[in-house]
C-alpha cells in the first residue's frame, strides 16, 4: 500500500504542481504564500482522496481545493511558515517565449503590474480570473470547479473584468498605455 501511495503522490504532485502554484500565486499574490498553499492543497487532496467520487475531472476537484485553500490562506497568514519557505525571496518571474531580452524584460514588467492590479481585487474575483485565463476554463467548467451556477459565473467574471479595468485605469495608467492599441468596434464578435 505504501508503494502505491508513493507512486500516486509522485504522479499527482509532478503533474499538477506548476498549475496549482500558478493559481495559488494569482490569488494570494506572492511566491511565499503560494508555496504554502501548494503544500496545504496537496496535503488536503491526499487526506480527502477517499471522498473523490470520480463524478468530475480530478483537476476540477483539485482546483476547487486550491481555490478554497488560497482564499482561506489569507485568514491564517499569521501562522508561522515552514523554515524551508521562510528564506525564499518573494521575487517572481513569468514564463515568456519572446526572442529578445528586451521583450522578455518588458513582459516581466507587465506581468508584475498585472499581478499587482489583480491583487487589489477581492479573492473571489482573483480566483475566477486565475481559472479563466491560466486554465482557459469555459463557463461550464468554471461553474463546476467553483460550485456556482452558470449565471453567477458569467456575472462574476464580468464583474472581475470591470473591476480590473478600473484598477488598471486608475492605479496603473502605465499598464493601460502599454496594452492600449488602436482598436476598432468592428473587431468585436
Amino acid at each position, binding site marked *: 500500500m505504501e508503494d502505491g501511495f508513493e507512486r500516486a503522490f509522485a504522479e499527482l504532485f509532478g503533474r499538477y504542481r506548476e498549475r496549482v502554484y500558478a493559481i495559488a500565486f494569482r490569488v494570494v499574490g506572492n511566491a511565499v504564500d503560494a508555496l504554502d498553499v501548494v503544500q496545504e492543497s*496537496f*496535503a488536503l487532496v491526499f487526506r480527502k482522496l*477517499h471522498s473523490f467520487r470520480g463524478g468530475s475531472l480530478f483537476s476540477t476537484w483539485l482546483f476547487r481545493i486550491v481555490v478554497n485553500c488560497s482564499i482561506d490562506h489569507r485568514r491564517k497568514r499569521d501562522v508561522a511558515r515552514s523554515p524551508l519557505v521562510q528564506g525564499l525571496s518573494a521575487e517572481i518571474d513569468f514564463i515568456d517565449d519572446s526572442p529578445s531580452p528586451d521583450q522578455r524584460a518588458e513582459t516581466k514588467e507587465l506581468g508584475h503590474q498585472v499581478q499587482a492590479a489583480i491583487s487589489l481585487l477581492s479573492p473571489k474575483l482573483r480566483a475566477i480570473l486565475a481559472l*479563466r485565463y491560466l486554465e482557459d476554463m469555459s463557463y461550464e467548467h468554471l461553474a463546476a470547479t467553483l460550485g456556482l451556477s452558470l449565471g453567477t459565473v458569467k456575472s462574476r467574471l464580468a464583474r472581475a473584468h470591470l473591476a480590473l479595468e478600473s484598477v488598471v485605469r486608475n492605479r496603473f495608467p502605465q499598464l493601460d498605455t502599454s496594452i492600449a492599441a488602436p482598436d476598432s468596434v*468592428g473587431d468585436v464578435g
Partner: protein
Amino acid sequence: MSAPENQPPENQPRDRRDRFSCLPPTCRAFLCTFADNGTGAVDGTHAEQCAECAKQHSFQTRLGSLLSTRPISPELLRTTQFAEMLHERIIEAAASSSLGILVANRDSAPIHSSAWPEALLESEVARSTISATPQPSPAMWAKVRHSIMAGVSERRQPRHWRRLLLGITTAAAAAIVSGLVLSNGTTKESTIVFTDLDTMPGVEFAILRYGALR
C-alpha cells in the same frame, strides 16, 4: 456604457451596488457573454452602438494574453526537498487524523464500529480495522456497576424504614390490646343483700327462685 455609472437602480440598496449592477441589462448581457471565447455568441451589434462596451471588450482582449501568462514557479517547488517536506506533512496529517489515531490504538483496545467517524467507515482500511467482536471497556463496566449498586441501595433504604415502622405499629397495637385485656379483667366483688320483695331494692337484683335478672 449606456447608463451613467453614478446613477444606480433605485430598487437596490446602495452598499450592494457595484459598477456591474449599475449597467443596463443589454450591457450586462453583452459583458457576460463575450468573456467566454468558446461560445462565439457575442452580440457585435451592441458593441457598435455602445462605445464603452466596445472599449471594455478591447481592453479585455489585450489584457487576456497577460492574464494567461503563467508565473514561473520558484526552483524550490521542483526540488526533492520540497516534495519530501510535503510527503512528511501528509504522513503526519494522516497519523494525527481520527483514522490514524484509531489504527494506532488498535492493539491496546478493540474498536467498535460506532466509535468511527461516519466518513471513514467507507474506506477499506477502516473496514478491515474494525473489531468484529466488540468488548465493553473496564471503565465503562465500572460505571454501569456503580449505577446498578446505587439503584439497589436506593431501593433498600425505604424497605428498611417500612419494616421499622411496621414493628413500632405492631408493638403499639400489642400494648393497647394487652391493656384492654388487663383492664377488662378487674371486676368488683359482688355483695349479697337480703331484702323484702314488697319493695324494689335500689340495686340490681335477682330472684333466684325465678331465675334471670330483672
